[in-house]
């Protein structure tokens, strides 16, 4: 088995396959490559329908988290590895636009999208979905302690809320960064650090990712912190997940979501995700069709249960549970994307000094 001649065999095999580029004949369907972040998901029937309607084979290329995917697209600018990039959000938007990786496309689907989402007037990056990062709290905990649930960011500084909060590190977590931006938007650049110092005095716990925060520290999962930075949709998902029928056990009778989000004005940060055609693509027409598809009601309505985000298309209908229980913030804290691009590093650095060191 270990004779030397076998050394050459795998070598030859991989060299051969390396040289073999995917062949495209004119009669076979063309391929459209869509680069996305790792959380991309879509129902199979939905995408097959698109493929069949357009005689195209769609290849999805999950490329890490949003920032990593963007970086890859930037680095591969001269030799793009995909036709379309989806997943850049408003915290990365300026970086993407400044690096000039997109081609503008004014899709007809834009007509149904409220202007608040259209952060790029040139339509190089088109909005696809949004999610609001808000504080979540565990209702049962507060009722059992006879404690009033928090209603605003400022509440977290109160002494009765000491040691109750867990947040994510903005350097390593996307919702963490979103929450930091919320505080910056809410308190302003000169006051936000005071807020965080106050949180630190109140024993806020910082973890590195959302998973740890939500599935380890949150009291819902058996942890010790009943207030967590998550999404406005998380309470509804608790309900939906709980309703999944499991064999043998009756579905629990939950009349309302067991947790709630703090959605008062300015306490949440809206993350909007964008899609754009990459410059240098050879499949311009297909890429445009894909964009139209992403903005269409079919795709938009499929998103919530696949990616846990919400459609920007006002014509898309949400499922009943959402309509019933989803409470979205009216006014979210806003920070200019260019300001984010300019100050991101400094803000994170300052935050790290104030909270972690």
């Amino acid at each position, binding site marked *: 088995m270990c004779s030397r001649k*076998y050394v050459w065999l795998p070598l030859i095999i991989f060299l051969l396959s390396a040289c073999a580029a995917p062949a495209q004949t004119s009669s076979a369907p063309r391929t459209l490559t869509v680069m996305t972040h790792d959380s991309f998901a879509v129902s199979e029937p939905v995408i097959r329908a698109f493929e069949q309607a357009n005689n195209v084979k769609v290849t999805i290329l999950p490329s890490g988290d949003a920032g990593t995917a963007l970086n890859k697209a930037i680095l591969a600018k001269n030799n793009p590895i995909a036709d379309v990039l989806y997943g850049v959000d408003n915290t990365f938007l300026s970086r993407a636009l400044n690096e000039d990786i997109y081609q503008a496309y004014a899709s007809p689907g834009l007509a149904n999208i409220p202007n608040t989402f259209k952060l790029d007037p040139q339509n190089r990056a088109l909005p696809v979905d949004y999610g609001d990062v808000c504080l979540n709290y565990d209702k049962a905990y507060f009722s059992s302690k006879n404690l009033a649930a928090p209603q605003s960011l400022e509440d977290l500084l109160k002494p009765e809320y000491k040691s109750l909060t867990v947040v994510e590190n903005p350097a390593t977590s996307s919702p963490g960064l979103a929450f930091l931006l919320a505080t910056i938007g809410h308190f302003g650049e000169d006051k936000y650090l005071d807020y965080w110092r106050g949180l630190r005095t109140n024993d806020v716990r910082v973890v590195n990712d959302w998973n740890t925060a939500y599935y380890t520290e949150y009291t819902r999962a058996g942890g010790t912190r009943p207030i967590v930075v998550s999404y406005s949709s998380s309470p509804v998902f608790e309900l939906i997940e709980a309703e999944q029928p499991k064999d043998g056990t009756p579905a629990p009778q939950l009349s309302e979501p067991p947790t709630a989000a703090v959605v008062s004005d300015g306490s949440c940060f809206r993350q909007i995700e964008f899609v754009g055609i990459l410059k240098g693509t050879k499949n311009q027409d297909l890429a445009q069709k894909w964009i139209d598809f992403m903005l269409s009601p079919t795709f938009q309505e499929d998103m919530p249960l696949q990616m846990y985000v919400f459609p920007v298309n006002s014509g898309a209908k949400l499922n009943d549970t959402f309509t019933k229980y989803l409470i979205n913030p009216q006014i979210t804290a806003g920070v200019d994307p260019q300001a984010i691009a300019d100050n991101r590093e400094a803000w994170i650095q300052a935050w790290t000094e104030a909270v972690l060191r």
Partner: protein
Amino acid sequence: MTAGNAAGNRAGHNARQIDGPPGDQIAVRRSGRRGSWILLTLWLAPLIFLGAFYFYPLAGILSASFARREGNLLSPFLAALTSTSVRSIFAFTVYQAVLSTLLTLLIGLPGAYLIARYDFPGKALLRALTGVPFVLPTLVVGAAFTALLGPAGWINQALMRLFHLSQPPIDFMYTLAAILLAHIFYNTTIVLRMVGDFWSHLDPRLGQAAEMLGATPMQVLRKVTLPLLAPAVAAAALLVFIFDFTSFGVILVLGGPRFATLEVEIYNQTVSLFNLPLAAVLALIQLFFTLLLTIVYTRLAARVTRPLSLRPQRFTLRRLTTIRQRLLAAAYIGLLVLLLVAPLIALAARSVTRVESSTRLPPGQSDQGITGATAQRGGFTLDYYRELNINRRQSLFFTPPATAIGISLLYASATVLMSLALGIPAAWALARSETSWANRAMDPLLMLPLGTSAVTLGLGFIITLSHPPLNMIGSPWLVPLAHTLVAFPFVVRSLTPALRSIRPRLRQAAAVLGANPLRVFRSIDLPLAGRAVLVAATFAFTISLGEFGATAVLARPEYPTVPVAIYRLLGQPGALNYGQALALSTILMAVAMTSMLVIERMRIADVGEF
């Protein structure tokens, strides 16, 4: 009688000889040119491999990164070297790596002894179990440790009940202790296997001779055993250190935000801040440090390796006879099980426990008075396992677990074959000569992939492998190639001490009897080092099974490996997804363990273990 000792040491053939022809030489000295050519041929495949899949992508990303700098070429370096935060990050990285390595050695060496010298019931099982941690993705390890040692974990709950405490006594997460413990958890198997198997071939008569000369067991250990074990211990320590030095997931998940190593910082700089020049500088720092260490190691190892009388295992294993021996062994195994196996059990247990949907109250209070939801206590359930096969939302990327397992096993097998195909010639080359320039150059080079930031290299792959001459993005071969990049240094490090320890006299004897070098290798080196080859193969296999970082970057979404599938489940909210992730992790553990048991039973070169 002349005092011939000045010429003494290694130039044995010059000194006066009594009673017979010169004996063993440490290195087979071939006539210069032919020897060098043979070495170069052996190194050819590994060199091509490294060139195409390491240096080329690395060069790509470094040049792209430095192209974005402001100022001259030196400015990113100056900025990094003068920054206090970079210095403190570097210091911490080294500090935690040194500490972790020492602790891992401390815990692993007694186990290596036990495995090397004794046979006891359950030995094979213990070996397989202790190898499983190596396979687990770090996100999952975080969950496992939390289930065991978190504020609501078993140990704290048990202690609280036992001593009627109101607060969990062990505050484990997000401390340096958590990082160290996780590193021990991951890497002890390296020490157990590499040192244990090498030790098992050491002639116990050397220890007996020392005892007869009056050495107590402790003295035997210090003066005879440890010096002879040094090559294997050094190799294991080097690998463990490099892993700890480049640790990423453990720091993030178990250390929390307060701790940052070089790798974490590289990630932050690259992804979050897109400061590529700085990230490149940090990656280079990491690389050079690894290179430095490896060079020191190779110098040391060459001096410390000697030809030994390697004996077959069946002559060196004994049973545990006295009560004292049995008690000590049991105590140690208990410790090992606690450190390495208990988190696995906690993980498996968590995967069959219904995640509670009500708040866990502070201990001491009853759960009356909760309005609204019915309190659902955790009960045994196989739902998460069942759910794995159900594509409830008809998600495009749904992969049934059997498919993911099949893909993982396929990639792992390919990785083993490629790593052995590259690693065995390299180890053979290293064993043939310690002084050849080819060896001294290649040895540190092949360790470089282990010390390179995965983030950086991943980006490098994207940049360079997405266009000719090597347009391989999307090729399924990329994943096992990336795995091989990490696995084959392992193979070389496992094999080289063993191959070097084979007495040249044996090879000479075979040669004189008519065996050409290849035959000599197959009939002398391979059987004597057979165990080491199996150890190496096992490592390559488990590395591939558990590899996540590179795979996530390079895998096609239709062919996910199990860690990628686990990561996907973890990225989606909902208790059901979380439970499925735990279930899939448990399956991964079971697959890893079974595979390792199978590999260890396999025979090498039709000779088995002698």
